[in-house]
């Protein structure tokens, strides 16, 4: 009887995942969808603990299970609640890595069971004693889970700045070799003697971990959202493999659903940047840098503007457009920019924000950030609307954005970001660019905009600059 209740719980859980994802894709129902999926997950977990039976025996080790879950619950809750809104992208990557590791560990333990069950026939090939379907699920789960774990950790490190972009010639070739080796050892494990199958298996897992690192390492930091989304769907598939192993429909549906939805989401994200997935994964920015630099080398003089001049220009403008970017997020300047906006509006200036879909590190990053500072929703213009407005704009204030305002995306076919839709800020009367230094943006390419006659540079940390602008404008 208890088994059928468990099955019903799993069915309900699967339905909540589907409903949850469906609702998450519409702004009005998104939050409810998340809660519904969370509810379904709680049900599935509780049902597993209390109703699951293994060969007729209920589960044991409750003390350990509850201790582990409490640790995970407290840690997960604290991390998720404490982390700043700007660090959300890397947090998603971190949690994704945890899921991947979890899936890999399950597969490793299951392999151990399988390995030890066949120890009494150590000289017979593993393939003739072990169950093919189970081995397939175990090896796939451990490879995909390990790759997802190490890849997510690299993505996490890249987003919080602790891992730098390193790429060298022949890297993709090397990656390919590692991948072939992973598959080679996976097959070799299957055909090796049952008494020694554990060694090639652990080599496979190790190589899968290496592959995760090698796979993400050459990809530029600006493309991390796409990579995280891809790794997210990897973890989904790994979870589904484990579900297959236990004949567990809740894990299978949840995992495959995420795997499929995640892959599509990855493609949609690429499309928002007008690039193909292949281009993101293979065409790492490092290789094309040279051709982009060779083009514009004529006028390299930049013009700086003082804080008081900038304050004056903004205070007496009719229409100001603010273009936020990652620099704003790093400086935690969303509240300051809102203060500046309010101050200018009080003076009768028409202030709006131009939001590029991939400004920051994740699609929607800027919307989330500005919403945190209570910026009015109506003031956020999407790219198409904003581009119509720039012609009549007096001053554009670019705050820590770079690649999304780079005209090279329109003019320079040799540029790695050529074809990406950008904000046409150069159509405005004047552009003030706030950056910390002249260092190129995440794509690692020069920005012609900074050398334009219309552009004035205002160097410094976005938050400090904004606060000083505010005090200057108040004095006017």
């Amino acid at each position, binding site marked *: 009887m208890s088994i059928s209740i468990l099955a019903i719980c799993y069915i309900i859980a699967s339905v909540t995942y589907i409903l949850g994802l469906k609702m998450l894709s519409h702004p009005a129902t*998104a939050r409810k969808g998340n809660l519904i999926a969370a509810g379904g997950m709680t049900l599935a977990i509780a049902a*597993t603990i209390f109703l699951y039976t293994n060969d007729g025996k209920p589960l044991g080790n409750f003390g350990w299970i509850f201790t582990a879950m409490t640790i995970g619950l407290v840690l997960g809750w604290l991390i998720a609640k404490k982390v700043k809104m700007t660090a959300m992208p890397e947090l998603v990557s971190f949690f994704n890595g945890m899921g991947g590791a*979890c899936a890999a560990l399950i597969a490793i333990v299951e392999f151990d069971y399988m390995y030890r069950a066949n120890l009494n026939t150590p000289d017979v090939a593993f393939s003739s004693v072990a169950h093919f*379907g189970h081995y397939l699920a175990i090896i796939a789960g451990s490879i995909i889970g390990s790759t997802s774990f190490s890849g997510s950790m690299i993505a996490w490190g890249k987003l919080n700045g602790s891992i730098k972009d390193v790429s060298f010639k022949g890297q993709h070739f090397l990656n390919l070799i590692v991948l072939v080796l992973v598959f080679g050892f996976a097959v070799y494990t299957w055909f090796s003697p049952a008494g020694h199958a554990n060694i090639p298996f652990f080599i496979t897992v190790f190589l899968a971990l290496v592959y995760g690192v090698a796979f993400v390492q050459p990809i530029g930091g600006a493309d991390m959202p796409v990579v995280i989304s891809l790794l997210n769907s990897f973890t989904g598939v790994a979870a589904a493999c484990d579900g297959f192993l236990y004949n567990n429909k809740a894990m299978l549906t*949840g995992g495959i659903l995420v795997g*499929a939805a995640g892959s599509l989401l990855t493609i*949609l994200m690429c499309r928002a940047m007008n690039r193909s997935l292949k281009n993101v994964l293979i065409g790492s920015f490092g290789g094309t840098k040279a051709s982009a630099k060779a083009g514009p080398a004529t006028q390299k003089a930049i013009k700086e503007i003082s804080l008081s001049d900038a304050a004056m220009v903004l205070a007496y403008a009719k229409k100001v457009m603010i273009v936020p970017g990652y620099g704003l997020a790093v400086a935690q300047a969303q509240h300051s920019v809102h203060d500046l906006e309010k101050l200018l509006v009080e003076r009768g200036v028409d202030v709006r924000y131009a939001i590029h879909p991939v400004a920051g590190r994740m699609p929607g990053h800027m919307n989330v950030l500005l919403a945190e500072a209570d910026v009015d929703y109506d003031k956020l213009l999407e790219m198409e609307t904003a581009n119509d407005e720039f012609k009549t704009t007096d001053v554009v204030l670019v705050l820590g954005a770079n690649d999304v305002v780079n005209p090279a995306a329109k003019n320079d076919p040799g540029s790695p970001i050529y074809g990406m839709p950008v904000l046409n800020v150069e159509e405005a009367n004047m552009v003030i660019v706030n950056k910390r230094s002249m260092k190129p943006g995440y794509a690692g390419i020069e920005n012609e905009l900074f050398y334009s006659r219309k552009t004035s540079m205002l160097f410094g940390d976005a938050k400090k600059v904004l606060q000083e602008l505010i005090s200057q404008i108040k004095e006017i």
Partner: protein
Amino acid sequence: MEAISSFLQQNLDMIYVVILMIFLGFEIINRVPSVLHTPLMSGANAIHGVVIIGAIIIMGKAESDNYLALILGFIAVVLGTLNVVGGFVVTDRMLEMFKKKNQKS
């Protein structure tokens, strides 16, 4: 060949589920506005935390002298819980901000 056909035979219902879920997954998020990409990814991230069920089963069925299963299982449950709890809480925090915005406009 024999192995493959028997593999298909044994797992036919699973294979049906996999195929249907792939199409469903594609269909569900086909028209999602780009603003919601990040929360949706985060939500999907939380849902694949369902892998924790496997971790619980591993722990629950481990004999008391099977240290490998106990230790790795313990870590797996901790990590899985992190994935589930962290995933849903982060998604909720992101969406909370969208909600505030919608009420205002």
